[in-house]
């Protein structure tokens, strides 16, 4: 795919090197630990054609409505964008990525170079080579945005590969909350590969909440990498709500780069019949005295398959690390399979690290109790399953929580 002529030279250069990386790599195989349970060889990945790279976007200006800002993409194009006027005045930027490449060259270039250097699989290299549409959020130092900012991707394609991208840059001491939704455009036939990346950089004492929900079409493939650099005393809360696509492989790679940094990596997933979901979190402690928590909860219907791989990786110098990792799975039917693989790599003795995982079924006594109060079996199951996800969604903005619970109920009814 030819890079767009409007792109600045640094981006064209980055793309061509990403292209070289892509061509020099092979698709991951099951001999690699991260891909051991997720075989890509039968997905026909080579048949997916990248959609056009970034084209100049001139979105319709909209009122951000209930959020502080809203940017919306449909079928690889930015169609609407809006930001609260006072925030705009204060220097906040919410832009289609192609409009940000010049103004934010310095931070983006640095960030993307590091991301490309870390790219350890072909999907990542392909993403930067073929990055097709995306948004940038920049919050200047010291500024706190209370209301959430919405980033919506309504994907549509058949036999194509789209590469949506989000870059979030928070200045020192700033705060923001982002709700990012990747969904199938209404009426989309499905059958595309969505290869998304989110790059996050938090300067010192910044705080980001990033609430992601994925509801692609049943025939779609989904791969998504989050790469987050969390600086001194800064805090990341990431939430991964995974529901759609027949095949999904996600990773959240969180770098705790300064003392006092903290990360909460949470996820909720519902895997229906015929779906394959492989989710990975990495808590990379590269600095002393950082804290991280990863808690993922899933429900797997009959014929569904999930893999959760969590890694806590503590560098030699990262003394005083406090890290925890847990995964729970609820098996809802016959033929459901769920693997949970937590791993610790500890390079320092002065750390507090633990992990745990459980897999179970709905409790028959709890079902009977609810039914004895008049709930039908289906209603009782739904109440228990929603209750199971409830605690992990409690800190979420109401809109996100309601959206995730509605998706869970919808999937549950579809699986019944």
């Amino acid at each position: 795919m030819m890079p767009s002529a409007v792109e600045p030279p640094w981006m064209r250069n980055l793309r061509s090197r990403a292209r070289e990386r892509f061509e020099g790599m092979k698709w991951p195989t099951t001999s690699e630990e991260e891909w051991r349970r997720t075989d890509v060889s039968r997905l026909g990945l080579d048949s997916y054609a990248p959609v056009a790279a970034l084209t100049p976007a001139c979105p319709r200006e909209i009122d951000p409505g209930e959020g502080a800002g809203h940017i919306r993409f449909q079928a690889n194009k930015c169609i609407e964008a809006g930001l609260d006027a006072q925030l705009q005045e204060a220097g906040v930027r919410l832009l289609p990525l192609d409009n940000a490449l010049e103004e934010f060259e310095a931070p983006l270039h640095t960030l993307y170079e590091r991301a490309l250097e870390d790219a350890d699989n072909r999907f990542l290299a392909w993403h930067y080579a073929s990055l097709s549409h995306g948004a940038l959020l920049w919050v200047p130092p010291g500024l706190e945005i209370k209301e959430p900012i919405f980033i919506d991707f309504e994907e549509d394609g058949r036999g194509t590969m789209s590469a949506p991208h989000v870059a979030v840059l928070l200045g020192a001491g700033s705060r923001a909350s982002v709700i990012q939704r990747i969904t199938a455009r209404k009426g989309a036939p499905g059958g595309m590969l969505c290869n998304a990346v989110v790059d996050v950089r938090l300067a010192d004492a910044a705080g980001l909440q990033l609430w992601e929900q994925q509801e692609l079409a049943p025939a779609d493939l989904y791969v998504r990498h989050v790469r987050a650099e969390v600086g001194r005393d800064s805090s990341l809360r990431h939430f991964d709500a995974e529901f759609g696509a027949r095949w999904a492989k996600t990773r959240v790679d969180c770098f705790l780069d300064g003392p006092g940094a903290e990360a909460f990596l949470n996820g909720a997933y519902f895997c229906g019949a015929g779906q394959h979901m492989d989710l990975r979190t990495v808590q990379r402690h590269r600095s002393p005295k950082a804290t991280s928590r990863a808690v993922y909860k899933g429900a797997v219907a009959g014929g569904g398959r999930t893999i959760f791989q969590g890694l806590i990786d503590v560098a030699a110098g990262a003394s005083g690390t406090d890290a925890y990792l847990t995964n729970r799975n609820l098996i809802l039917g016959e033929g459901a399979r769920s693997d949970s693989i937590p791993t610790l790599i500890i390079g320092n003795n002065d750390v507090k690290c633990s992990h745990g995982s459980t897999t179970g079924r709905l409790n028959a006594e709890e079902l009977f109790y609810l039914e004895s109060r008049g709930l039908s079996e289906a209603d009782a199951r739904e109440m228990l399953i929603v209750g199971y996800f409830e605690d992990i969604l409690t800190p979420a903005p109401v809109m996100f929580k309601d959206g995730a619970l509605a998706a869970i109920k919808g999937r549950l009814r579809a699986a019944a």
Partner: protein
Amino acid sequence: MAQHLQVRNLQASIGDKPILSGLDLDIRTGEIHALMGPNGSGKSTLANVLMGHPSYQVTGGSVTLDGEDYLALRTSERALKGLFLAFQYPVEIAGVTVGKFLKRVIELRGTGTGKSASGGDKSASGGGMNVTAYIKRLREAMDFMEMDQAFINRSLNQGFSGGEKKRMEVLQMLMLSPSLAILDETDSGLDIDALKVVSKGVNRLRGPDFGALIITHYQRILTQIVPDYVHIMYKGRIVTSGGKELVETLETRGYDWIKQQYGIEEEANEGAVARR
């Protein structure tokens, strides 16, 4: 509405183990029955079988409600017909708050008040519930049960003490206003103050539209809730029934009396069957 639950020659087992061995019982609204008996006599099994617990199999006999086959109904249908079971060991339900749970189960009964649980007006079902009236009623019932209102926002039974769980059972009973309630050892593990509160809850519903089966080991709850009928269960069936004076007889003579009186006879019969 008057209801009549009729149990005839009921036999039930768990796995291969028979527990109920031909039990007869009649409970009508307006009546309070006490069911007593030694450990292992099958009292809790009866409660679970009447509510439809999936671990028990009915192997013989019948249960009818106003002449209709009751055993053919699902557990939830039995509940909506007006049966309520206060559990001996209420389970903890994570992520489901007391307030949300009660609202949902009252909605299912199709009225904002929880009255007229069966039959009658179905037009108010679904979204027709009066939420303000519901909350007012819930708060009033919690006051009556001497429960902290903070429980409304807590997950059902999660982290509750034994006594709090039992109060929560009776609170649910007050809110649902069933026509027939089974209280399975609701008194076990309660101190005298908690026992009085729980009894107060049952006595509040007492009247022509409410019947109850109080399963207990101990006489003391029956001084708070005075039964109209007392049944003694032994080896899977009711061996004798009487009025409240039976409680006193049991108090003075103990369960050994029952065992001597009915156990020997039972074993003799079993011997007779074996010789046949």
